[in-house]
């Protein structure tokens, strides 16, 4: 094929173009100058410092960020991206959780069968349930890793002491969020894991009926720290309702509020920590 027709480049030319990146500019040109594109978008985006600032500052979602950050804060090796991934997983559970709420009733007679219905009859029901559960479990792991990296980089040191304290609240609420959700499928796994977990409240000093010094307070199995948690003396339908409300309303609201404070404090404390 010695005769070179105009418009059909040889392989070597093509490779050279890919290597130099020229080909991407050419493809971009073809797309951006097409009639479909120019009729859809009235003007282009000029990559100027002013526009870069506006992208952040005039966007309600993005303006949680500062408009500029230290270069070192971009390093994945430094943050492991774990705080951000934790937040993303939280958002995933919110989205999938709302969908699950359409099909689930926190009532002793219904809860388990709603789960079955969700899994076998609701389109994508199983997928939504899986995503909700795995995101929740993953969030527990990522929040621990985030905490570990914050410790290893000494990022709790002044001026970030208070954000670490908020973080400890956040890890606690993450675990409680996961734990209260664990009961909702209302199967054997759920009931007994929560029984084991909440049995501990029985042993609370002073306030649990089997705890040290309980005899001086006069708590009973039907009236102590555990029964307040469960709405009864065992894990029954009242406990299911309580855990449902805590899981779907109370704890997400509190955690969400704490996350807002957490992010705000990162900025007020001077952004991601770094040397100097």
């Amino acid at each position, binding site marked *: 094929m010695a005769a070179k027709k105009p418009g059909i480049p040889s392989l070597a030319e093509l490779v050279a173009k890919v290597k130099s990146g020229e080909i991407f500019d050419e493809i971009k040109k073809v797309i951006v100058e097409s009639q479909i594109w120019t009729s859809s978008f009235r003007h282009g985006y000029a990559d100027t*410092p002013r526009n*870069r*600032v506006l*992208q*952040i500052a005039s966007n309600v979602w*993005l303006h949680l*960020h500062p408009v*500029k950050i*230290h*270069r070192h*804060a*971009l*390093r*994945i090796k430094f943050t492991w*991206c774990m705080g*951000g*991934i934790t937040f*993303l*997983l939280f958002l*995933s559970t919110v989205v999938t959780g709302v969908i699950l709420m359409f099909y689930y009733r926190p009532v002793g007679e219904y809860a*388990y069968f709603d789960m*079955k219905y969700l899994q076998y009859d609701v389109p994508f029901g*199983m997928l939504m*349930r*899986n*995503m*909700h559960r*795995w995101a929740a479990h*993953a969030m527990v792991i990522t929040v621990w890793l985030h905490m*570990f990296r914050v*410790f290893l*980089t*000494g*990022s*709790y*040191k002044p001026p*970030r*002491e208070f954000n*670490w304290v908020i973080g*400890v609240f956040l890890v606690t609420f993450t*675990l409680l969020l996961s*734990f209260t959700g*664990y009961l909702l499928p*209302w199967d*054997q796994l759920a*009931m*007994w*894991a929560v029984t*084991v*977990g909440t*049995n*501990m*409240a029985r*042993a609370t*000093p002073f306030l649990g009926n*089997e705890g*040290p*010094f309980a005899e001086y307070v006069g708590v009973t199995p039907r009236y102590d720290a555990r029964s307040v948690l469960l709405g009864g003396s065992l894990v*029954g339908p009242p406990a299911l309702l309580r855990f449902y409300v805590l899981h779907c309303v109370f704890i997400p609201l509190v955690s969400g509020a704490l996350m807002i404070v957490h992010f705000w404090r990162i900025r007020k404390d001077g952004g991601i*920590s770094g040397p100097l």
Partner: protein
Amino acid sequence: MAAEAPKNKVEGLAEKVHVWPYLVRLEFLCALFTIIGLTVWSIVIDAPLEEAANPTKTPNPSKAPWYFLGLQDILVYFDPWFAGVVAPVLIIVGLMLIPYLDINPKGNGYYTYAERKVAIWVYSFGFLVLWIALIIMGVFLRGPGWNLFMPWQYWDPHKVVALVSVDLPYAFGVRTYEMAMLFGGVVIIGYFALGTAAYLFVERKAIKAVGLLRMLIKVQLYLIMIGIVIKIVLRLGFNIKYVWVTPWFNI
């Protein structure tokens, strides 16, 4: 990402970079990979759903959710009031106190082992050993009756494990209840008193700089953490059940 020089040199290699595009694109990529990973995981593996809840049928073993299995394992060595209530509270409060107890100004905002060896050792031991390792043990090695089973062993619900443990005072030949209570009290209180005194003595030069209150709180938390390990060793190695038995609580 620092190595990648911006193509159109908007800010050269300045200390600060624009969040748009440099951070936002990273966040986008991170989010993309996470969501892809989560979706694949959710398509491949189904969430468990066992038979309907039945309050009359207790499974053996009954396990708490995996993230609490470290605490559940501590139940072997401590009574529920400690393992289930006091220990979690101490963990939470202790974690919150870290920034106020560790006043070493070095290692703020970068990885270093050399400049804060003790802090890294203590946290890593607590997290990796007392929390993560116990969870792994609880998930994989604890079978019926909360007995230890190796992965290749059959989970025999009738496994008989001799209960040969005795209380520490008994092991030392103390036979009356009152004397045992006294003995145990002396051991526990003595442990904290001596531990505190020894720490303050070794660190006496630092007291002025660190502050006495800070140091006292720090050493109590250390002693509790070490005490948990000692208790585990006493039980596993020497079959000691309680160190201090009182009418109200046992340790």
